[in-house]
């Protein structure tokens, strides 16, 4: 047991090959160095995974992880982290989803679960109050994510349990298959669902009646809670999120000319007003929330009439609006909502799905592929029916869908004919919904983030959009900006807070104060982000060991050579070389993107020097 509040101090290790289940202690050294959540999961993966293993083979492991604040009354701490070696990027793939699963796992008695091996037949894992079992799941195989969750709840006779499961796409090892919880909460990116599928693991279900321990006395907890609620109640971002969630920014990003359109060929989407935050709001049935969060930024939408009448789905996020909307030049809100629903039911990431389909559409536009390649489909921009047909073909790996199910990078390699130019990805991960030419910091983050082109790994957008002192188009200071936000994100992902906590008014002082109250540790505001820097460098070690280096810190050449054709960011390109020089310098990395030995020593990562300097 650990001498800290917040943690249960216990991890569950489940081997699906041997069916061995055992409890292990969370090491105090990990807490001191990596806090919890993403940091601890990355530490385990770096230490336990052999370099260069097949992510879809039995040697890969998948970790469900919580942080010290999970299950406490401190708001926005409900996220569950799932980490593994990604089949899309060959890199660490820690992804996060909201909902209830994180707290439920904690209440069941564990900080996390490490899943190894491969089951012979389909199974799911059931953890009930400190007892774990591997249950047969043949009857669940082939079911979508909503059906699977319902069937498991029925079978276990309890609607209050938490279920995280895969759909058909995960079973079919689509490289960007997601993990879904409670229908609407999604651990979306980099194919964690495919790794579950490769292990014949359909779902993990959890329930528990254990309390989360707290170091401080109850009065102190109430004081902290009242303090943060008062801050959040006055925060304008919170107010905006209550109405529109992350979709609040789509119209603004379009106005500023960097809403990726037609596979990033353009930065202004003419149909934006048909699928923007207001258009969604008009279809709103009710808001809903993650566990313990007073922001309730999610909404259920329903289409009442027209060809898509009867579609009920959660409101698409900014990213989905881009990937299944503007990126495909699709402005039919019904088709976008149906695409969103299908992605959630089959269990595939909306960003990678949309951007991979956009890649195919651009190949079709340029006659690199023809109807004879697509099984007779004409991949015309903005055709909602074709988009939804392709989503199904990807999830089931039917015909041309089998090519796209590999993600844009691998699909381009199969198609050939110079098509990789149109695969909008970095390190295999499809690029999210901010054209880097319109916000240079996010471009630098896409090129360098340890998870590939991932917006949440270093969301510079908040600064580049809303801080008057930051000019989104200049290069100056972007190395420092990207580095600092990437490091902050790692700390946030390890505590675990929602990535928007900093935008909701959480200060480093409040974060350290709440960590100290819950756990009993004594950590200063200055030190909390140093943990994040350590994790950024640890994950870089993983990448270097896999054979990645500075030469992989790139962006598709479109962003470097072609100026945006119109709008408020017209003519903008990215001078990535200059951005990278600045970034490596701020990071204390050499010109090949290797952390210097001194840096690794300073961050207490000296044990990994040998692994990368041979």
């Amino acid at each position, binding site marked *: 047991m650990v001498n800290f509040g917040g943690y249960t101090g216990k991890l569950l290790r489940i081997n699906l090959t041997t069916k061995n289940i055992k409890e292990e202690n969370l090491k105090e050294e990990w807490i001191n160095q990596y806090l919890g959540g993403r940091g601890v999961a990355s530490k385990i993966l770096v230490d336990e995974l052999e370099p260069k293993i097949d992510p879809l083979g039995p040697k890969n492991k998948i970790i469900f992880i919580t942080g010290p604040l999970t299950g406490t*009354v401190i708001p926005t701490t409900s996220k569950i982290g799932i980490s593994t070696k990604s089949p899309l990027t060959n890199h660490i793939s820690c992804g996060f989803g909201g909902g209830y699963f994180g707290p439920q796992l904690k209440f069941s008695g564990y900080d996390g679960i490490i899943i190894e091996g491969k089951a012979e037949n389909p199974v799911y894992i059931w953890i009930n109050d400190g007892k774990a079992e591997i249950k047969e799941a043949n009857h669940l195989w082939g079911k979508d994510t909503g059906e699977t969750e319902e069937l498991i709840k029925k079978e276990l006779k309890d609607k209050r349990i938490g279920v995280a499961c895969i759909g058909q796409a995960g079973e079919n090892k689509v490289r960007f298959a997601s993990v879904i919880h409670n229908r609407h909460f999604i651990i979306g990116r980099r194919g964690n669902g495919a790794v579950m599928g490769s292990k014949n693991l359909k779902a993990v279900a959890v329930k528990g009646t254990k309390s989360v321990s707290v170091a401080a006395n109850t009065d102190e907890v109430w004081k902290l809670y009242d303090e943060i609620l008062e801050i959040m109640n006055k925060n304008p971002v919170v107010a905006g999120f209550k109405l529109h969630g992350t979709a609040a920014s789509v119209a603004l990003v379009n106005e500023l000319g960097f809403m990726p359109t037609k596979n990033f060929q353009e930065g202004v989407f003419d149909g934006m007003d048909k699928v923007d935050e207001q258009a969604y709001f008009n279809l709103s049935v009710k808001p809903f929330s993650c566990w313990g969060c007073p922001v309730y930024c999610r909404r259920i939408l329903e289409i009442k009439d027209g060809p898509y009448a009867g579609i009920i789905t959660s409101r698409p996020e900014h990213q989905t609006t881009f990937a299944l909307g503007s990126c495909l030049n699709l402005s039919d809100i019904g088709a976008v909502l149906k695409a969103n629903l299908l992605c959630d039911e089959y269990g595939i990431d909306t960003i990678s799905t949309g951007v991979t389909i956009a890649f195919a559409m651009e190949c079709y536009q340029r006659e690199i592929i023809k109807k004879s390649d697509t099984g007779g489909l004409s991949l015309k921009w903005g055709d909602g029916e074709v988009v939804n047909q392709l989503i199904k073909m990807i999830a089931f790996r039917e015909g041309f869908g089998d090519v796209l199910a590999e993600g844009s990078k691998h699909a381009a390699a199969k198609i050939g004919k110079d098509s990789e130019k149109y695969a909008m990805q970095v390190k295999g991960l499809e690029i999210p919904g901010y054209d880097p030419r319109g916000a240079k910091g996010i471009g630098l983050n896409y090129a360098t983030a340890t998870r590939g082109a991932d917006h949440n790994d270093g969301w510079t957008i908040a600064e580049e959009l809303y801080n008057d002192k930051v000019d989104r188009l200049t290069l100056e200071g972007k190395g420092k900006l990207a580095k600092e936000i990437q490091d902050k994100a790692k700390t946030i992902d390890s505590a675990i807070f929602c990535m928007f906590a900093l935008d909701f008014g959480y200060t480093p002082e409040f974060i350290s104060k709440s960590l100290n109250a819950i756990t009993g540790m004594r950590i200063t505001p200055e030190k909390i982000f140093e943990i994040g820097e350590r994790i950024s460098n640890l994950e870089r070690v993983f990448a270097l060991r896999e054979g990645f280096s500075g030469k992989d810190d790139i962006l598709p050449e479109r962003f470097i050579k072609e100026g945006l054709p119109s709008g408020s960011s017209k003519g903008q390109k990215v001078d990535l070389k200059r951005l990278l020089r600045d970034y490596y310098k701020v990071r204390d990395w050499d010109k090949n993107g290797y952390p210097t030995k001194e840096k690794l020593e300073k961050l207490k990562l000296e044990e990994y020097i040998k692994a990368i300097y041979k």
Partner: protein
Amino acid sequence: MAFKIISVDEKKCVSCKICEIVCSLKKEGALNPEKSRIRVWSLHPGIDVPVVCRQCNDSPCEDACEYDAISRNEENNSIVINSTNCTGCGLCVEACPFQAIFLHPETNKAITCDLCEGDPTCVKYCPTKAITYVPWERSLEAKRGSEKKLYQDLNLFVD
């Protein structure tokens, strides 16, 4: 008799379950929804209904108890559980038409809402005012009549 109840407008509930966690912190000093006196039952992902003691006139829980462990607080009309008498047999849990009385996961004694001495913590922290503390006559529950039927129609509970 004039009394107040915790009234639930499930249409305003956003499924955050803050009521559960603040209840457990207030009543038990613990972070644990399974020790809460109010529970949010899932109807469908994203659509949930908070359930809390309705202070029924005929109080089936009181009738069901064979150990004289359940009585009525004359001042605020709340249900009071005498945990010395309570054996944890669960008859009250079975009898409650709303599933608003529970067995404590550690002590195995019955627990239910005691209205926090007239200042319910769940009401104070509900971010959408889906739960309010109002005189019975003004409550949604009084207007609707039989809640039990509503809950059955909603297929709220798994049997």
